[in-house]
């Protein structure tokens, strides 16, 4: 089934085409959800809600840009919307100084590099993690992040700086990277 056929069938609510689209994109999208979510179960909930939105809004897709990018954007927005329903998330994303976390070896499953990095990202406090995911991986600007999370743009910058420093420290401790530049939580600044 070509992408055009798959798209046309999905718009017409054809189950086979919808399943094809789902099978094609769901593994990568679940990886995206997993970076935002607390656990795998929550990530699957996000994925499910995201794909329902995708199928119901697919007729709005105009073939402008890659389909995966369009799907990814919806998934990310869905993740953020689900996170925002939790009051703790709103508090966390506004707190600039997160509590220090004690990293133990067994906290990070050593399966493989990509998995290791993702698990390290998931060790970050939820506020840091979300901003870092949106900025560094999903390519949102701080202004967009501010609008998306209902926070100030400057808060997003601060969050990202600290998230980045904290992640570097984690990656070093896990020996995934070698000694990065010594960064204290207060003096790093984002350039974007």
């Amino acid at each position: 089934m070509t992408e055009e056929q798959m798209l046309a069938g999905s718009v017409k609510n054809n189950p086979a085409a919808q399943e094809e689209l789902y099978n094609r994109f769901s593994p990568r999208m679940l990886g995206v959800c997993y970076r935002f979510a607390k656990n795998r179960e929550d990530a699957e909930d996000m994925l499910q809600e995201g794909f329902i939105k995708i199928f119901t809004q697919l007729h709005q897709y105009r073939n402008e840009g890659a389909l995966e990018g369009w799907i990814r954007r919806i998934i990310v927005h869905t993740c953020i919307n689900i996170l925002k329903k939790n009051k703790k998330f709103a508090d966390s994303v506004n707190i600039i100084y997160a509590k220090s976390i004690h990293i133990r070896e067994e906290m990070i499953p050593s399966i493989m590099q990509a998995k290791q990095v993702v698990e390290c990202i998931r060790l970050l406090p939820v506020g840091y993690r979300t901003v870092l995911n949106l900025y560094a991986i999903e390519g949102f600007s701080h202004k967009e992040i501010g609008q998306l999370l209902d926070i100030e743009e400057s808060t997003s910058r601060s969050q990202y700086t600290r998230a980045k420093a904290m992640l570097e420290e984690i990656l070093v401790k896990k020996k995934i990277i070698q000694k990065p530049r010594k960064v204290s939580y207060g003096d790093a600044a984002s350039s974007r």
Partner: protein
Amino acid sequence: MEKNFYTDDFEQLLKDTTEDFRMYPSRKVWHSIYNDLHPAKKWPSFAVCLLLITAILYVGINNNNTINADADNLLLSTLSPSEKGKNAMKVKAPAFALNQVSREIFQQSPASAGAKPDNTELSANDPGSMSPGTVNYTQSVVNFDPYLPVITQKTVILPRAEARELKSETFINITPVVPSIPDIIPIDKKTVQTTMEERLPAADKTVAETDGGAINPETGSLTSIKTAPNTPAVAAVGSGEIKKLSTEDKTWIENFAFHNKRNGNKWKTKFSTLVYATPSIGYRILNKNNNFEPVNALLIRSSATSVDADDAISQQAALNFESGATGILDISRRLRIKAGVQFNYTNYISFADRLSHPTQTNVLLNDLATGHTMLVPFVTNYGNQGGDNRIRLNNKTAQFYIPLGADYKLAGSDRFKWYIGATIQPTYVAGGTTYLVSSDYKHYVNAPSMLRAWNLNAGFESFISYKAPGGSVINIGPQFRYQLLSTYSNRYTYSENLYNIGIKVGITRKF
């Protein structure tokens, strides 16, 4: 080697690293999406639910179950002097008096049946036959000893002062007055038994996080790549490059991950507990249960009526309640079995008249030993002929169940599911109050000893379950339960099957 992280490098590193990260969702995610996109027609079930709720509300509103007349309130022992001169002599007794006597009448064991008849039942007699200063009691004796007359009535005349201290032991000078219906029951030494009650015998999901790493071909498990500082992989990362897997490796890993499920505690994920409560409306179906031959056709005819019992009895549904806890085990994606414990309070209302004085009446019972029916006298305070003092009699029981059954999922997404279920419920009747209708339908008799101790119920339900954000699952839906065996023992000439319709509300938690 020290690596300085410039912003762009770090972000690129993260982006490149996580780009290859994939996880394979469990199939239930797709099923949930599919069910959401292609919902089945659900209006029939909603219509049934709406109808049931409306019916329950209607009956509930009309059922002003405030008056609870209970035979236990029958008063027998203390005379009220102020009643002198009235046609009706009201007497007071310990609350248990009448019940106790009735119970004894029906629970007399064969061993004790040979003894002198000592089960007496007190009733105030016609005051017109009394001499001043005395109280006239009629003592009704029902004897199940085949060697003795079945029913006799004995009158005791006591001074009023003594009557106030009335106790059963004080009946000494008993003189037969009316040997009523002496020949109703055949006296057959071989066949007559005093068995009173026939009791039933106590009855993912595909989990795959793959992007690299090593697969152990023997165990099939993923093992980690130890990234020591001096390994090439680390060096590559340290220099901002990510070692990527070949397309062939990725495909192999993906296939492996797709077909190999992660080991988990299956028992934990499949087991859940449900606690629930069900307010309901209860009623009954009354059928004849007297295929036995009448001993004395003339007497039976004269006492019994040809009118159907359902027409002769005025009754109404009443509020019932049940609650319990159930363990549920998932057998498949759609089927699950369950077992638990449950308490149930059943009730329905019979409309009666409170009589001004205790009255003797007869109840048609089956003699299981001889295969004959017989009239057994009772004393009661409740009539069924209409009168000024209308009351409601609550026919209530307390029951304990062990519901055993299964649920089947008809449709649903991850959040909402629609189930149908059925249970069979071995039941123990712990107690209750039940009113038998007399053979002529003119009286009600309280005879708790006629309750069947072990019974069997069947339940049917349909419910919607909603998975709340906290992890709990809320279940709500209509339930119908039917009592398969009669409320009464086989001795009573009517069988009564209770049923109720309610709304079951429960919360399920996964272990």
